């Protein structure tokens, strides 16, 4: 028997709320200090959404339409772990991305790049008993935005994860190795610590790459949570 604890120091890699280079943070970041509170039942519990939430095909973004999307086919796989490296099983991952031309289907995306009738860019997957997930997609394109003159986002996939409690909730973005846009992207660089920043870059993996089919990437998510010193429990083996 043991319980999970959530040290606040573990969040030191997170970006600040105000990162002036990312213009949208200027009027949306709190100006007053956050109030630090203890972890009560309300924070230590969380919603449970598992296998019942996904349907066959939700994890293959290349087969959601009549035809196949254009672009470089990819497989992304890895594990969801806690800070001690223990798997987080049966947890929901939601993901969304631009198409190969760098265009989202979202109604407010105005980038004059083509939509792909065979690509929505939305997926869901639930981790298995070992915390593993896997999905198939196409590599998203870079796209321009209006943050500053000639601003382009590096190629990325958005992810939303739950984990076991309110405190483990994570929304983040996964990037691709070697992207020349990294030095210019204020969202990626909002994370001050280079090591923490690099944790958002997937690893190309030839073993995951499927011959004659798709390039493979490995990406592990690490959610908040450590095992506290195990409690004495005679039934624990």
């Amino acid at each position, binding site marked *: 028997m043991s319980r999970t604890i959530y040290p606040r120091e*573990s*969040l030191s890699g997170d*970006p600040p*709320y105000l990162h002036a280079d*990312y213009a*949208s*943070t*200027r009027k*949306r*970041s*709190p*100006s*007053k200090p*956050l*109030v*630090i*509170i*203890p972890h*009560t*039942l*309300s924070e230590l*519990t*969380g*919603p*449970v*959404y598992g296998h019942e939430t996904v349907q066959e095909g939700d994890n293959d973004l290349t087969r959601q339409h009549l035809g196949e999307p254009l672009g470089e086919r990819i497989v992304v796989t890895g594990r969801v*772990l806690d800070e001690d*490296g*223990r*798997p987080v099983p049966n947890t929901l991952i*939601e*993901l*969304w991305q*631009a198409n190969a031309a760098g265009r989202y*289907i*979202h*109604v*407010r995306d105005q980038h004059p790049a083509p939509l792909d009738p065979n690509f929505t*860019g*939305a997926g*869901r997957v639930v981790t298995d*008993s*070992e915390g593993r997930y896997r999905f198939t997609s196409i590599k998203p394109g870079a796209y321009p935005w209006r943050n500053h003159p000639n601003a382009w986002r590096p190629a990325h996939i*958005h992810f939303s994860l739950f984990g076991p409690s*309110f405190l483990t909730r994570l*929304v*983040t*973005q996964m990037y691709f190795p070697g992207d020349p846009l990294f030095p210019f992207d204020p*969202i*990626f660089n*909002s*994370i001050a610590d280079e*090591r*923490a*920043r690099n*944790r958002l870059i997937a690893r190309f993996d030839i073993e995951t790459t499927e011959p004659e089919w798709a390039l493979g990437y490995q990406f*592990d*998510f*690490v*959610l908040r949570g450590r095992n506290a010193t195990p409690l004495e429990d005679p039934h624990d083996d």
Partner: protein
Amino acid sequence: MTEARRYGVQPGNPDGVTPSQTVGPFFAYVLTPHEYGTREIFSKDIVTPDAVGHPIRIEGYVIDGDGEPIIDAMLEIWQADGDGRYAGAAPQHGANTAFKGFGRSDVDSNGFFAFRTVKPGQVPGPDGTTQAPHINVGVFARGLLKRLFTRIYFQGEPANATDPILALVPKERRHTLIAARRSRGDDTVYTFNIRLQGEDETVFFEA
């Protein structure tokens, strides 16, 4: 038993928590896809027929530092039922109804949101205390590099006076956490505006 055997796999060796990034402006077609006609797994109406508690609506606007409504935010709520039980929690605190206590909503083109839920009961607090009825809220949006965390408390609730979390909030800012109650027809409506920055800025927590 070793950790590897316990979990049936070799544990990873992570070098730190995966950092947060903004949800961005284009999340709706998967996270809140009601306008896209695709399957939705979360809802802003979380009342189930068997839910314990008084049905309420919670409405408000999400507002930026210029006082302008934010039209691309997403809110998530997490709460106990009317008896103070969290879905999925340890047996002594868990509920056995279909009420999951979790809701998600986007905001409309005016920055307006509305949840339908039940008023939560009291739940245990730290050191043997009891917390006043409250709902945990997560705020996500373009420009928010990580989730903002606040709480909704309820106007007219005597337990607010002894709530151990409200007690940590400077007195002059507590009102930003207390939703105002009114009746509209048969509905009980609580208004809770979320001001990200500036005058009457909502209190946000770090936990």
